């Protein structure tokens, strides 16, 4: 029995159906990430798990119990919000202890858990401050601390890093990964950033328009995408898609996909194009090549140099080509 089970969960707002028959089994201790473009329903799904929205139909089970009818506070979950959502008029300590107080825990238990969480998140010096007196990163840690003290079955993270600047985001990402290792609690995490998903997740659930496109480990999704959406969404820079006719593929193949890092540039090659732009990143170089009216991204390792406007050939191993049919499904 997994720690979270979704069975045919559907959600509609009035006439608009936003989630279609979502089924998912999450194992104990797993770090699972919902990823997808904005409006794909990932946050709604998280809110249904939390109990902040009702599922129109289907079952939500947490730790083997059907929780559809339980209020959020009794589902054994804790949630970290994108905007932190700290209580502005309460100190850090009270922010963290409010949930336990509501649940009727004894004062000693509350003290102990808050102290432990504060130690772990390095919040001890700030316990008597109010949220307004903290920096963005500290507020984020308080929000995580508020979730940790509840000792839930399930952590829910709703885009927790999107309000932080780039440097802090990397740090906090590592902190969340460490937190997961230390606590061993199941985490369900929502993000639109595929890099976050790739670096943190045990398994990724790719959502689009309220459908699950594919579920798998980051490398499974990267190496073996089921369809054109997952192929294009996972990986950075994104996969290039070209007309299959360029390679003389059979009629059943409509589109071919090539990862930027699978292409090398040379004088000759099965596909030819002209260099349009170069991005030097130091460790590698992104080269944009015009092939017909498409712009192909090529990622060269190290510092490569090409003249803009020069004609080049694109080379790649035959097994690096992904093939998709008209409906965008992968042909294996």
């Amino acid at each position: 029995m997994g720690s979270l089970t979704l069975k045919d969960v559907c959600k509609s707002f009035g006439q608009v159906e936003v989630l279609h028959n979502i089924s998912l089994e999450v194992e104990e201790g797993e770090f699972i990430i919902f990823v997808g473009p904005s409006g794909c329903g990932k946050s709604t799904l998280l809110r249904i798990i939390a109990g902040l929205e009702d599922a129109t139909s289907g079952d939500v089970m947490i730790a083997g119990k059907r929780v559809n009818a339980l209020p959020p506070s009794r589902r054994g979950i804790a949630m970290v919000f994108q905007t932190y959502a700290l209580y502005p008029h309460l100190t850090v300590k009270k922010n963290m202890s409010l949930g336990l107080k509501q649940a009727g825990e004894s004062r000693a238990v509350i003290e102990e858990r808050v102290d432990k969480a504060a130690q772990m998140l390095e919040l001890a010096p700030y316990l008597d401050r109010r949220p307004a007196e903290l920096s963005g990163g500290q507020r984020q840690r308080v929000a995580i601390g508020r979730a940790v003290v509840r000792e839930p079955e399930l952590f829910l993270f709703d885009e927790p890093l999107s309000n932080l600047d780039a440097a802090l985001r990397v740090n906090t990402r590592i902190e969340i990964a460490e937190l997961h290792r230390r606590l061993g609690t199941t985490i369900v995490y929502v993000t639109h950033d595929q890099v976050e998903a790739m670096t943190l997740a045990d398994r990724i659930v790719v959502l689009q328009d309220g459908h699950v496109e594919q579920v798998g480990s980051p490398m499974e999704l990267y190496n073996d995408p089921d369809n054109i959406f997952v192929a294009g969404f996972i990986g950075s820079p994104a996969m290039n898609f070209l007309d299959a006719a360029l390679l003389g593929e059979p009629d059943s193949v409509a589109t071919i996909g090539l990862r930027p890092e699978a292409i090398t540039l040379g004088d000759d090659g099965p596909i030819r194009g002209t260099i349009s732009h170069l991005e030097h990143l130091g460790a590698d170089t992104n080269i944009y090549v015009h092939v017909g009216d498409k712009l192909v991204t090529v990622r060269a390792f190290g510092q490569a140099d090409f003249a803009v406007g020069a004609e080049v050939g694109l080379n790649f191993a035959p097994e690096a080509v992904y093939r998709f049919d008209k409906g965008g499904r992968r042909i294996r």
Partner: protein
Amino acid sequence: MQRVRHNRLNLALAHAALIAYTIIALFPVVIILINSFKTRKAIFRHPLQPPTPDTFSLIGYETVLKQGDYLHYFQNSLIVTVGSLFFILLFGAMAAFALSEYRFRGNTLMGLYLAIGIMIPIRLGTVAILQFMVATGLVNTLAALILVYTASGLPLAIFILSEFMRQVSADLKDAGRIDGLSEYRIFFRLVVPLVRPAMATVAVFNMIPIWNDLWFPLILAPGEATKTLTLGSQVFIGQFVTNWNAVLSGLSLAILPVMILYVIFSRQLIRGITSGAVK
């Protein structure tokens, strides 16, 4: 440099306009105040002159405090104003929370219905209100006034407060729900503190018309026991003889409590505690 000078000029113009407005607005108040401390003769001879040792007199205040039950009128006005404000804010905020927070059938319609009161003056319904109060035996009670003022204040309160409550972070309320707070606790402990400045605005808007109203006290509660200050002051204005000393002194005294209430609410207006609530 050019820019600085330009700003200075703007600043001077803005200040000139504001000072001019202040003088115009305060002029009648100051006239009332200085004349309330003068003898009757001096009021008519030199109405613009501040009291001198010759013309200084407290006769007006003496008359006011002796004649009629002035302190009692004061108390009535205060009870009516504070009571009405309390119910306007309480019910207004609760209705606004429901309208802004919950999705239910007819939400928009309900909001429109509640806002219609802004456009229709409650005095149009005076006759019906009087009949209703007679039927329920509420004539000549302060409760009648409080009920009427609460009803007339609610539409604008709901309209303003629901707009502000929509701006309160949804995540904050959800965080409260996950922590196990009841909807009432979320409303009173999380949302109300965050919209306090808006509630102070609503209070100030409603307070002064209620305090100054003559219409409803005259119609619904003209009895001696329930007279409000504005109504009580009318005894000094006669058809043939008006005791100007007493009228001016009474009005001067009537300014004080509203000023105190205003100071209390305006501090709330300025104090913003929302910063840092959510990023």
